[in-house]
């Protein structure tokens, strides 16, 4: 019964979304306020229906209702409750429902918090947003219905892939989707603006909070995925340049560029055409990610199960929205007036540089990801493009970006003084170089690029601090005045500084772990020892135990350093009951200077066990940096000037201006 309610709610959501797609846009054309207002209530109703539908599916998973095909295929009654809940989106159909739910959430948010938007813009935005929902709801109902029944119902489900049975499943997909589905807002605003043929600085102010919210979630979602892969896959890697990773990374790169170009548009009324284009492209890349992950055209360690028919439908949806968006852009962009002059050395100039580098970097990732597909389609030759390609193309583009990053926020709008800014950054740069030389001397030989990158990371971090200090006029004013100023800096300044500092910290983590990691593969018998990066590991033996739905072989290691005890590591191998599949649980000792990482391999014929020992210097900084970026985004979002739904100044203006 609950399942039928969920199914029915999903169909109703499609009906409501169809109304929301047509009525408000028509209302905007004929300037009928009542028709336009339909969009608001429809968006809220659509979201409510999607929640009902989603909860119904969750109910089926929690109660292990195996008469639902999706539950029977992907769940098991022995599974702990958290994985029955999170398992809802651990499969194609359920995750599609989450996708649409988040799409609905953003639509409802515009209806509820977008009261200050001009009525026609709001109506058009909601209409475009609903058209995306219609496409995906049709896709779900016709090709991937999560509520499909199976008769006779199997007695037991087939279980969830054990790799996914991890607490991270509860958080990683929702954040990731909130990120790249959130970019649909930027797309809807861009298309709405093109339909109206009017776009101004206010538009950028309305779009920025939504883009920022999506960007924050995507940042955190990607970082969580990276952390999850790091501890779960047992290879100790944190990023593989895998096509599916790239699928989420490309919208991030484009979205980051969009955040910055929207800033120029809001403050200086320039880069309008480019910003609109970026908004369309960012969401198109999100759609392409959805396509790549679900169509099976790519080889990946974590693609969804594949079904070419579904792939073709998603490809059609993607072509429709990307093609439609770009066609509308080509048709209407000429009508947008360009404004705002600026010198190359200026805040705008630095943001343009940011945009050029980010979008070119995004293009190289796109080429590397799609090239194998294209080549196979044309010549039939199968190739793989691996990390070396991306390291050779992506990193050289990031280095100038990192170098320019501290300069940007310090340059004045319109016309900046490069020399004055360089003087202010001299201390940060000098400090970065000194620290790097010190560390390089201590750590011994490594790749020559590593100290340079580490210096850039530090420069970005110190540069972000310099930005805050110089905004508060350190040195120009007295101490009390400085403190007063630094406290009362706008939150968006703190947000920028934190986000940039987060990048700097992340870069240091990346450099540390990529250039100075130690890896050792050994075979040990109980009572034997191994040494890695100054840690001494004593293998005490293996104990079998049982978990809720798996059996486990836990190895025990006593870790000491220079004779004093550090910790006990318990890496293990699990064998799940359903599906019967092994997983490796790494044993990790986290520390600021780096992680000691132990993963179990196979048992040896001679009685020992193969082991992979790693020391990953500073690897934590990668994820800490991402969290700091997220926090920076949050703080920025609470800034009065950006707050979603902040009263619009223009609306009160007519009252304030006396009749002449």
């Amino acid at each position, binding site marked *: 019964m609950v399942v039928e309610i969920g199914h029915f709610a999903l169909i109703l959501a499609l009906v409501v979304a169809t109304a929301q797609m047509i009525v408000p846009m028509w209302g905007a054309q004929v300037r009928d306020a009542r028709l336009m207002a339909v969009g608001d209530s429809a968006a809220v109703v659509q979201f409510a229906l999607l929640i009902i539908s989603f909860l119904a599916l969750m109910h089926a998973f929690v109660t292990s209702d195996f008469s639902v095909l*999706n539950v029977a295929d992907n769940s098991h009654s022995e599974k702990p409750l958290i994985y029955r809940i999170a398992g809802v989106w651990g*499969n194609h159909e359920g995750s599609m429902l989450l996708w649409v739910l988040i799409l609905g959430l953003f639509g409802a948010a515009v209806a509820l918090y977008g009261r200050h938007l001009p009525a026609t813009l709001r109506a058009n935005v909601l209409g475009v947003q609903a058209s995306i929902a219609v496409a995906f709801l049709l896709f779900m109902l016709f090709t991937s219905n999560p509520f499909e029944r199976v008769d006779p119902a199997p007695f037991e489900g087939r279980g969830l892939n054990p790799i996914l049975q991890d607490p991270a499943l509860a958080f990683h997909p929702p954040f990731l989707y909130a990120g790249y589905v959130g970019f649909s807002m930027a797309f809807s605003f861009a298309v709405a603006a093109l339909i109206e043929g009017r776009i101004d600085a206010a538009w950028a102010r309305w779009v920025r909070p939504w883009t920022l919210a999506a960007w924050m979630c995507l940042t955190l979602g990607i970082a969580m995925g990276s952390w999850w892969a790091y501890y779960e896959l047992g290879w100790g890697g944190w990023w593989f340049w895998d096509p599916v990773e790239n699928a989420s990374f490309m919208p991030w790169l484009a979205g980051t560029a969009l955040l910055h170009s929207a800033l120029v548009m809001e403050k200086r009324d320039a880069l309008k055409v480019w910003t609109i284009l970026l908004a369309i492209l960012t969401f198109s890349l999100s759609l392409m990610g959805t396509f790549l992950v679900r169509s099976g055209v790519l080889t990946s360690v974590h693609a969804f*199960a594949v079904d070419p028919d579904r792939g073709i439908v998603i490809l059609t949806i993607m072509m429709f929205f990307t093609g439609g968006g770009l066609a509308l852009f080509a048709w209407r962009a000429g009508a947008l007036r360009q404004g705002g002059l600026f*010198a190359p050395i200026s805040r705008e100039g630095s943001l343009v540089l940011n945009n*050029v580098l980010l979008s070119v970097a995004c293009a*190289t990732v796109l080429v*590397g990801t799609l090239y194998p597909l294209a080549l196979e389609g044309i010549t039939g030759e*199968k190739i793989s493009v691996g990390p070396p390609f991306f390291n*050779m193309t992506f990193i050289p583009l990031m280095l100038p970006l990192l170098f320019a990053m501290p300069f940007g926020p310090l340059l004045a709008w319109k016309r900046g003084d490069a020399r004055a800014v360089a003087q202010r950054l001299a201390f940060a740069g000098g400090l970065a170089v000194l620290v790097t030389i010190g560390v390089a001397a201590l750590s011994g030989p490594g790749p020559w690029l590593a100290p340079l990158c580490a210096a850039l990371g530090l420069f970005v971090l110190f540069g972000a601090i310099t930005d805050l200090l110089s905004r508060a006029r350190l040195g120009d004013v007295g101490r009390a005045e400085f403190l007063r100023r630094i406290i009362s800096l706008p939150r968006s300044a703190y947000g920028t500084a934190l986000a940039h500092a987060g990048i700097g910290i992340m870069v240091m983590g990346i450099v540390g772990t990529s250039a100075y990691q130690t890896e050792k593969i050994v075979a040990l018998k109980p009572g034997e020892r191994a040494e890695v990066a100054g840690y001494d590991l004593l293998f005490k033996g293996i104990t079998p135990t049982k978990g809720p739905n798996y059996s486990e072989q836990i190895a025990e290691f006593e870790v000491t350093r220079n004779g004093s005890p550090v910790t006990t590591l318990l890496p293990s191998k699990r064998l799940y009951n359903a599906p019967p599949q092994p997983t490796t649980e790494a044993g990790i000792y986290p520390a600021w200077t780096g992680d000691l990482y132990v993963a179990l391999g*196979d048992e040896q014929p001679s009685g020992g066990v193969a082991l992979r020992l790693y020391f990953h210097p500073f690897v934590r900084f990668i994820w800490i940096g991402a969290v700091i970026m997220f926090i920076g985004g949050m703080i920025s979002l609470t800034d009065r000037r950006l707050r979603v739904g902040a009263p619009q100044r223009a609306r009160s203006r007519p009252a304030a201006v006396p009749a002449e």
Partner: protein
Amino acid sequence: MTRKQKRGVLIGSGVAILSIASLLVMFAFRESIVFFHTPSDVADKKIEAGTRFRLGGLVADGSVKRGQGTTVEFAVTDTLAKVNVQYTGILPDLFREGQGVVTEGKLSPDGLFVADTVLAKHDENYMPPEVAKSLEEKGVKLGPGAQHKSGAGY
């Protein structure tokens, strides 16, 4: 600077960065692309020793031999031809005889494939698409696993 000059600087720097990136991409493609071959390709195409490539197929039944320490030898087959592979390291959890596998490495002059990477998908029913496709092309019947449609990994 005039408006025109400013625009020139803007466009010029954009074009410059784009062309640098294109050069990098072309260079990187030449250096780092790895071809995928099946064991019969290895026999047919006479791949030179020392060329890095990916070898994919099924782990031949009864072929896995564990040697000294963490060195393992096994054979990869597409049922028509067979290549012996040597790998030192830790095999993925789902490495098993009769299952699909992708390995990356180089052929040694005596025809042994020395792999430094062994990939098996995180799903017991999974068959790497390249493997499934090339096996199908060669007329090998695949078990239900290869067609398994739902319930695979995220």
